[in-house]
């Protein structure tokens, strides 16, 4: 189920000196849906998310927000969320909630961290830190939520929990854009998938439609869509851009 477009990238380009991180990328991020970005390391997923967020200025093209008015339009979970040490979970989320007049307890309950509210934030596991990051991304009830590798480095059970939370965020009517290498979880959660390679969008389609291209699992379609040699060269040139 996808709604109206809340965020759109129109022919976006991004270069760092001689290195092209994004080239002529157009992508819509609709409401009530999860839009997944998949692609090899260095394909431009994180750069595209940062451009969508306004954290990186594109060298070409535009990014437009079409969603409803909100005190905070875009929520963001960075790839490795790190919080200021010395504070409890509740104090940490309380800081972000205060900035947008939100209720910190509601945010903690939303991601299942209410029971560890008094725990020091630097004593959280990787998965709990990621959940706290998602709670932070939801502060102020932003219509668009952008998640960069929300489950990277987590055990399978925690990854599954994170993706369940992500799916429920979209079910509340938000537009969710995420990048991930967890193909099975992305396939299960995303309503649309954009495959990136060398800074360009190779294709955008539903997971079902992509699977039908090869008749096998998504990773086979993914592999068949990419020029692997080129992907490796790109990854070496731009790192994990």
């Amino acid at each position: 189920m996808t709604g109206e477009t809340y965020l759109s990238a129109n022919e976006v380009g991004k270069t760092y000196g001689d290195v092209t991180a994004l080239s002529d990328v157009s992508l819509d991020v609709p409401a009530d849906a999860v839009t997944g970005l998949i692609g090899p390391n260095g394909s431009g997923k994180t750069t595209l998310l940062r451009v969508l967020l306004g954290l990186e200025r594109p060298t070409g093209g535009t990014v437009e927000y079409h969603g409803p008015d909100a005190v905070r339009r875009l929520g963001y979970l960075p790839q490795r969320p790190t919080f200021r040490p010395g504070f409890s979970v509740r104090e940490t989320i309380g800081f972000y909630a205060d900035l947008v007049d939100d209720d910190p307890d509601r945010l903690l309950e939303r991601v299942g961290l209410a029971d560890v509210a008094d725990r020091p934030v630097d004593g959280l596991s990787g998965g709990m830190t990621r959940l706290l990051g998602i709670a932070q991304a939801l502060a102020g009830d932003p219509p668009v939520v952008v998640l960069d590798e929300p489950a990277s480095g987590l055990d399978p059970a925690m990854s599954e929990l994170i993706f369940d939370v992500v799916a429920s965020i979209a079910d509340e009517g938000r537009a969710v854009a995420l990048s991930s290498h967890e193909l099975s979880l992305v396939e299960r959660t995303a309503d649309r998938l954009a495959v990136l390679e060398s800074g360009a969008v190779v294709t955008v389609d539903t997971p079902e439609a992509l699977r039908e291209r090869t008749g096998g699992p998504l990773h086979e379609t993914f592999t068949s869509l990419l020029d692997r040699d080129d992907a490796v060269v790109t990854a070496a040139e731009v790192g994990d851009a």
Partner: protein
Amino acid sequence: MSHAGRFWTVFVRELRAAVRTRAYLGLLAVLAAALFGVARAGGGPAGGYVPTVVDLLVVVEVLVPTVAFAVGYRAIADPADRGELDVLETYPLPSWAYVGGVYAGRSAVLLALVGLPLAALGVHVATTAGPETTVFASHRGVDSPLLYLRFLALTLWYALIALSLAFVLSALAGSRGRALVLALAGLLVVTVGGDVAVFAGLDGGLVTSETLGGALAMTPAGAYRGLVFDQVLYVAVPGRSAFVSGAVAVGSLLFWWVGSLVATELVTDAR
């Protein structure tokens, strides 16, 4: 919530963090020991407030920026390193409210670190100085606690200026490693670099004996020293006048203070 409210939220978080940072207590103890040690070694407290200021001035010129840089050198670099600044960009938090809140919070810490030992030293002088030390300096040559209060006020202002310089370097650094290197370099420039540059200019003919006072007042340390001489030491010494213009020194300190904070805001905003 208004932007002023968001400024307050950032300020309160800084204060909470400071209260929980036990290292600040150690810094306070070391600074107090150093200031009392220097003053007692010089015999200033027994002589009065002005002799105490004479004992302290050179040490304070170095110690206060050092403490200010210790308090502020990671103020912007740390959240940049953690990715917190990127996250905060998605909030309706203007960079002036963020930088201002962090600066206000760390200023409160710094004012306590510098002000408490100096105030305690003032009390110590009051209890040990001779009878010629009076409350009001009615004419030149008379010692007074009001002169010490002037010294305290100027020193606290100097501390805030050094903190703002640490902030702009922290914003430029963008990472903890670079922040440390830039802070050490900045500290050297603030404590000795300015004077060295002026005297190099004097040696090279760029600065003359007529313009020496003005040149010294251009640096934060020189301006602070000049104001202490003008407003504290020479008040108690008949027949002496300041070696820098008070107005130029105040203008210079305002420039470094406001300029550094504006630069910090611009650098943070442009990230």
